[in-house]
């Protein structure tokens, strides 16, 4: 098997002097080996490239068993051709072939693909983009393909005893990968488009730039209807969705409620068949670029929107597409990375990042253009409590300190919800309710009717109220604890006397609070 993932691992994690050597030197060495192998006319000369290639691989600290494993396939191919030659020439043919292959393996085990493709001369920019996107897609597809193959095998679809049925099972697994790949490609397309790829440069149009005052309505969606290619109809009706400048709004709803469809309309990727969508006073699908320049978006699957070969390149993607000068791009990337605490990741290849790191990088990519409006599709999903708390604190800082309007879509009320200025509840393509967090989160019927979980704190308060306790509905653990403490006439908790800080991790709860969030 051609283990590209392992080769990539060796290249990215190698610490030998050859890994640190200039890329040009590594390319020249590999070219010399390939050229020397192809040009060798006698066996003694033909032995030099394989020996040199092997020596370079070992000097690059590639383990010998790995060298043997990686060279096995080229060796097999070389042997196939060698035996088809006159016996006296077979060793020469074999040495030429394996020498060139070892030269290329040396290059790849010391140079990550992204670095290679981003620096190779003569490659047109679009070819570079395709190669880098292929590289990113390969690893995403590898995971999905393995998952699909395991599932098909588990269900009896991949059996070597019935080869044709096995081929059909393999086909089903691959079809799943094709669909996943296609969906991922469309998500990447959206992300790339939102970050300004292939669009004009400059600032927002005069029409779009006109409006900017506090409390101003900057987005409105009224009873829209959309048909997907398979004729599935999605209608978002009920109450109007309205977003005001400077507010932090949440859009809550179960899977299939229409949140993503609403997002795609707000970003201009979907044009409603009926109804009204306005962002900054414009129709996003028609004025895509004017709206895009003022909006940052973080999609649900952040892996699909990170397209740069390194974190630094990825964050700078939007500014480069907008034609910013190099030094301005570099300064913006450095400054933002410092603010988000990801400066140490700037040199990294994105697919080695953890989920939390990927979210931060995607957020940096969305923020680097200094948007007025930030749309985030499930930004907390798949994060551990610590990463969740860090991202939550970041978003609050952006909104409160920097005035960025933020819209967050999610499928459950959580510890972050009380910090919103306004919460919309969606159910079955309908905006079923809207209001301040205290109102919405206290409305158990509304949440249950929409198929959402009622937050545990709220359940507790509701239960106690049903038993006659005079408590105000809230899902904020700190506020609930204060009320309970007053009711039970407990003394106030002093600084340092509270519970373990680790219990506060799930949400941006003020430091020093003593109420565990997982009650």
């Amino acid at each position: 098997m051609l283990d590209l993932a392992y080769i990539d691992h060796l290249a990215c994690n190698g610490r030998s002097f050859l890994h640190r050597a200039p890329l040009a030197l590594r390319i020249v060495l590999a070219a010399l080996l390939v050229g020397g192998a192809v040009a060798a006319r006698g066996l003694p000369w033909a032995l030099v490239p394989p020996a040199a290639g092997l020596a370079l691989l070992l000097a690059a600290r590639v383990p010998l068993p790995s060298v043997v494993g990686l060279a096995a396939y080229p060796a097999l191919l070389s042997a196939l051709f060698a035996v088809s030659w006159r016996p006296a020439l077979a060793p020469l043919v074999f040495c030429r072939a394996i020498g060139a292959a070892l030269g290329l393996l040396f290059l790849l085990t010391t140079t990550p693909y992204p670095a290679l493709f981003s620096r190779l001369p003569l490659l047109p920019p679009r070819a570079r983009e395709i190669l880098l996107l292929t590289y990113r897609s390969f690893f995403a597809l590898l995971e999905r393909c393995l998952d699909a193959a395991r599932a098909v095998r588990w269900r009896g679809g991949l059996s070597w005893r019935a080869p044709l049925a096995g081929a059909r099972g393999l086909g089903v697994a691959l079809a799943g990968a094709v669909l996943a790949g296609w969906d991922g490609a469309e998500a990447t397309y959206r992300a790339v488009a939102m970050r300004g790829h292939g669009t004009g440069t400059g600032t927002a149009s005069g029409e779009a730039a006109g409006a900017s005052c506090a409390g101003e309505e900057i987005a409105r969606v009224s009873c829209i209807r959309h048909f997907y290619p398979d004729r599935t109809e999605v209608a978002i009706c009920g109450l109007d969705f309205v977003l005001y400048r400077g507010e932090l709004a949440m859009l809550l709803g179960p899977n299939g409620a229409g949140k993503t469809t609403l997002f795609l309309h707000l970003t201009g990727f979907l044009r409603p068949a009926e109804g009204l969508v306005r962002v900054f006073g414009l129709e996003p699908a028609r004025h895509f670029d004017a709206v895009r320049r003022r909006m940052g978006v973080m999609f649900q699957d952040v892996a699909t929107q990170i397209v740069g070969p390194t974190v630094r390149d990825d964050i700078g993607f939007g500014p480069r597409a907008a034609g910013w000068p190099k030094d301005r791009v570099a300064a913006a990337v450095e400054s933002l990375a410092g603010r988000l605490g990801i400066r140490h990741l700037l040199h990294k290849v994105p697919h080695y990042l953890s989920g939390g790191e990927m979210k931060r990088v995607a957020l940096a990519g969305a923020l680097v253009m200094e948007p007025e409006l930030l749309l985030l599709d499930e930004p907390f999903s798949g994060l551990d409590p610590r990463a969740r708390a860090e991202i939550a604190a970041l978003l609050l800082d952006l909104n409160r300190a920097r005035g960025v309007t933020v819209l967050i879509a999610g499928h459950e009320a959580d510890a972050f919800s009380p910090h919103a200025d306004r919460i919309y509840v969606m159910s079955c393509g309908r905006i079923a309710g809207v209001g301040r967090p205290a109102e919405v989160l206290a409305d158990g019927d509304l949440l249950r009717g929409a198929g959402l979980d009622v937050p545990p704190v709220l359940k507790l308060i509701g239960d106690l109220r049903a038993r006659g306790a005079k408590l105000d509905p809230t899902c904020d653990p700190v506020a609930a604890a204060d009320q309970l403490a007053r009711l039970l006439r407990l003394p106030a908790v002093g600084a340092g006397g509270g519970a373990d800080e680790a219990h506060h991790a799930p949400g941006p709860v003020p430091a020093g609070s003593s109420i565990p969030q997982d009650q």
Partner: protein
Amino acid sequence: MSHLHVPDGILPGWVLAAGYVAAALLLAVAAWRVRRADWGRLAPRLAAMSALMLLAMSVPLGVLPYHLNLTILAGILLGPAPSVLAVACVGLFLALVGHGGITVLGLNTVLLAGEAALGWVLFGVGRRFLAPAVAAALATAVTLVVAAAAAVAMLVVSLGGSDFIPGRFVPLTLPLLAIGTVVESAVVAAVVGLLARVRPDLVAGGAGGEEARGKGAGGKADA
């Protein structure tokens, strides 16, 4: 295995040069054909298909030193011009890991692009009369046989008069080609059959290709 897993240092220089010239011409034509496409939309799709081909070519089928190609599937899903770009990309990745020599990259691009284009044409003809899965299976089988024959013929012609002995090479590879053709046809049929049911737009005569060629360009609202 219709593309050439020929290592470096085997084929004569004039053949390799001719391969590069032909590949450059093909790539130029393909790039010209997609010049009006919405690149932001086409690029991720090209990359997704390239990645899938790369994945398929990375995994041998059990104990057989044979792997799937999926070039015909690329032709069906992307259309001929984008699939030329995709196979060139895959070829470069593979050549860098010794899966066929770097000097043979041009020839491989020509062969794989020919495969994708022929598969696309045959599938388009076949699906007028047959179910998508059957049309895909037939298109794959016929294309692979033609492409394999072309590859072997090219080897024999280019190495004619040298010390290469075709009588040894062909019997070694023929059984693999036969088994591989059957397996790949079955797999492509299964993929296309399933896609035709769940995403008919993807196999409607190369719908992705039509978009890529510009009919859907600028159609952000259709995403």
